[in-house]
């Protein structure tokens, strides 16, 4: 792997995103609108304070998953990926380039969505607000890594988009947002223990209720990071230099 090649790839991906103003708008505005809607629905109750932080972690993952899986599928179909792999560009440079680019975009998204939730919607958390942003960025990179992996199994853009419910909705249902994970039927609790989003939401919930959550959050983030590494390693197996 080579830092220059990774940087070249992230720069290129960000330049591509920059020409697509509507996508940038959707990435930034949609989470704010949804959070605002939720705050309005639960106006006058404590529910928003309980689930708001968890959703701050879910949105970036969903958005980055879709953007990444469609973008890399396009690279496979247009022949640019095959072409890149005939150059000194390595699979690692390619994938990290994507992860860094969308990670940077996620920082912007997380800062704006968190700011909106806290200062406009009045979201109250016990822990520090900056930690919400950190967890959201990890979630976004997780979405990117899972998107890279999913795109390896998609042959068309329709399939790539359908992988979103297939990969992410089960995680969403089991992550502890609907009912706490320890109240799930035992088998489902085991399943939720091996899904990355569960730990992302655990971290967000910890920030919501614990005034000093750093230690607990670091543990959860470590697990999320391991999933990111695992997904990238598996995804690299789907990028082959040679094809039939």
């Amino acid at each position, binding site marked *: 792997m080579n830092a220059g090649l990774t940087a*070249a790839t992230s720069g*290129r991906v960000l330049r591509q995103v920059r020409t697509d103003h509507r996508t940038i708008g959707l990435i930034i505005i949609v989470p704010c609108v949804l959070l605002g809607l939720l705050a309005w629905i639960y106006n006058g109750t404590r529910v928003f304070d309980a689930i708001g932080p968890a959703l701050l972690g879910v949105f970036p993952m969903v958005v980055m998953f879709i953007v990444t899986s469609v973008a890399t599928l396009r690279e496979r179909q247009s022949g640019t990926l095959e*072409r890149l792999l005939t*150059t000194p560009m390595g699979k690692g440079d390619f994938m990290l380039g994507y992860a860094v680019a969308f990670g940077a975009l996620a920082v912007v998204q997380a800062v704006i969505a968190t700011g909106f939730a806290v200062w406009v919607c009045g979201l109250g958390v016990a822990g520090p607000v900056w930690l919400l942003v950190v967890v959201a960025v990890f979630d976004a990179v997780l979405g990117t890594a899972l998107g890279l992996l999913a795109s390896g199994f998609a042959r068309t853009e329709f399939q790539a988009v359908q992988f979103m419910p297939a990969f992410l909705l089960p995680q969403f249902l089991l992550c502890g947002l609907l009912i706490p994970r320890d109240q799930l039927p035992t088998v489902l609790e085991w399943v939720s223990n091996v899904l990355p989003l569960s730990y992302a939401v655990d971290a967000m919930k910890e920030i919501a209720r614990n005034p000093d959550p750093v230690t607990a959050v670091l543990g959860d983030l470590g697990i999320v990071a391991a999933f990111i590494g695992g997904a990238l390693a598996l995804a690299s197996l789907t990028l082959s230099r040679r094809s039939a």
Partner: protein
Amino acid sequence: MMNNSGPAVAVSGLQVVRGKRRVIPDLDLEIPAGQVVGLLGPSGSGKSTLMRCIVGVQIIESGTVTVLGHPAGSPVLRDRVGYVTQSPSVYADLSVRDNVVYFGRAVGLRGTELREAVDRTLSEVDLVSYADQLVQDLSGGQESRVSLAAALVGRPSLLVLDEPTVGLDPVLRRDLWELFRHLAERGHSLVVSSHVMDEATRCDRLVLLREGHVLADVTPAELLQQTGAVDADAAFLALIDAETTRSGERSAS
């Protein structure tokens, strides 16, 4: 600057299966260095597959493909072999310049060297005035020139070009062939596929493929001499007719 001791490409006993079809049944071929070698043949004759083998992206059944002294697709070859696919493979949502810059970076160009290489390449493919346009706003011919530029920017020792002149006007085609000639004179090796036979005369050497077999491996002059034809088109047809008769006799006996 080039290593001229051996051939640019040596193919021996190559067999390739794509889907259920044996696209290349058994192929031996040597492509000399420092020349423009035309790969001709009807569509489905295995031109693109052979090119994919040379750049090392094709899974092969058996045989060896040696490029610049190394097995095709080796890491050492990755900044020495440039590949342009038949359909343009560039980023539609990037500007022309950003595309060429990115592929320049991919082969390790940086700073002033990169800037100069990009400017030189843009003028070679005649896209200077379009440099800041997005590729998606260009015509098909312009898009294929961006794809060509992405390979030229790194000045690879071996350039493998799959139908680079399709859809281009005669002036541009002439200019590109002059560029290919100029590159060959500087010691680069080029393999250019085409089904436009009148481009054959611009090559140093011609390899005619049909159904994955080498029908002829000659200079343009030899081709006309051997077949007694007046142009490459007629010569190619004459060769195919002769081959059909021969294989007919073989199966009859």
